[in-house]
């Protein structure tokens, strides 16, 4: 019982809605996030800090692009692929976007089935998410290889402003790292779901709260964030 009380804060009648609720929650003793467990709150705060990291990357890219007097390479042509006898602009990036969005969809479904205690479906959907994530990273590796063989370096490239390479490797590299870590995290969590660790409250990393699938949702928050960052990278780096 004590476990339940710690995990899911009780929704007491005194919780107020709206702006008054914000003031009441923040000025109350001990915990501001009333119906949110520590795990979820901490993941959100981590994601907030990560938002600032990616925000600073995109900002430095903006500054470099705005302040250079050399023309910026046209991403539409740089990332075109020669398919079916013609150059299709940006096609690889478009496919990567759809792959990542699909992985976000499967992750959302996994969270949903987790809360329904459907272990099998949850684990399968998480593994599918991990597979889509791995596909994304492989396509990014292909993209990097292609650009490097074409002569893009952090300090130079054949088409224009030298800062293009440094921004590209920095931003997509950091995002790719996030996806890779996410895939590993997904595999670990999926294995725990499959074995029924959450059902039994087995000892170990984040599993000790019996019968609670909130960790799948917390994992999902991280994964959706990775997709969210890609939305901004796609818009600002590839389309702009």
């Amino acid at each position, binding site marked *: *019982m004590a476990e*339940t*009380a710690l995990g*899911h804060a*009780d*929704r*007491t*009648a*005194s919780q107020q*809605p*709206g*702006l008054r*609720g*914000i003031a009441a*929650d*923040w000025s109350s003793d001990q915990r*501001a*996030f*009333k*119906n*949110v467990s520590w795990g979820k709150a901490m993941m*959100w705060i981590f994601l*907030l800090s990560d*938002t*600032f990291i990616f*925000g*600073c990357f995109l*900002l430095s890219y*903006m500054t*470099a692009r*705005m*302040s250079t*007097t050399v023309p910026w390479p046209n991403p*539409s042509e740089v990332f075109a692929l020669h398919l079916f006898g013609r150059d299709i*602009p*940006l096609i690889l990036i*478009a496919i990567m*976007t*759809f792959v990542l969005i699909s992985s*976000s*969809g499967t*992750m*959302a*479904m996994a969270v*949903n089935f987790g*809360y*329904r205690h459907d272990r099998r479906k949850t684990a399968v959907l998480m593994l599918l998410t991990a597979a889509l994530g791995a596909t994304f990273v492989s396509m990014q590796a292909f993209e990097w290889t292609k650009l490097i063989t074409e002569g893009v370096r952090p300090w130079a490239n054949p088409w224009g402003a030298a800062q293009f390479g440094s921004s590209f490797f920095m931003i997509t590299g950091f995002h790719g790292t996030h996806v890779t870590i996410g895939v590993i995290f997904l595999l670990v969590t999926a294995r725990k779901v499959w074995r029924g660790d959450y059902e039994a409250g087995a000892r170990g990393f984040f599993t000790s709260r019996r019968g*609670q*699938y*909130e960790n799948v*949702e917390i994992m*999902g928050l991280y994964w*959706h964030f990775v*997709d969210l960052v890609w*939305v*901004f990278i*796609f*818009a600002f780096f590839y*389309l*702009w």
Partner: protein
Amino acid sequence: MAQAEAQDHGLHGSAVPAPAVAHVEGQQHPVRLYLVVWGWLFILSAGSYSIDYFGLQGYLRWGLIITFMMLKAGLIVAVFMHMAWERLALAYAILVPPLLILVFVTIMVLESDYTELTRILSFSVGP
């Protein structure tokens, strides 16, 4: 009995041995909702890509890029990350601070304009 007790203590559910209602756990929404949002994310991404495919330029291009981007981000945060159903105290704590980045953007736009001007004045070969 249990219900009366719960009311006495001003508690609902957690400290009382499980009436059926207290078993509703976490974020539960119909699967259909996720599929609809998924579909919209596909449509919006296709829209973003077609901006580039059809080579739109200028303010139309930038306006559409930003619009599609914000709509996608909003859907992901609100539905997939369940922010729409969290208490406002959490939503404001997480969503308001990133707005400060916009202040930073303003500062850096001014700064980079100045840098570009200096570069043109100092490094360009004269006419």
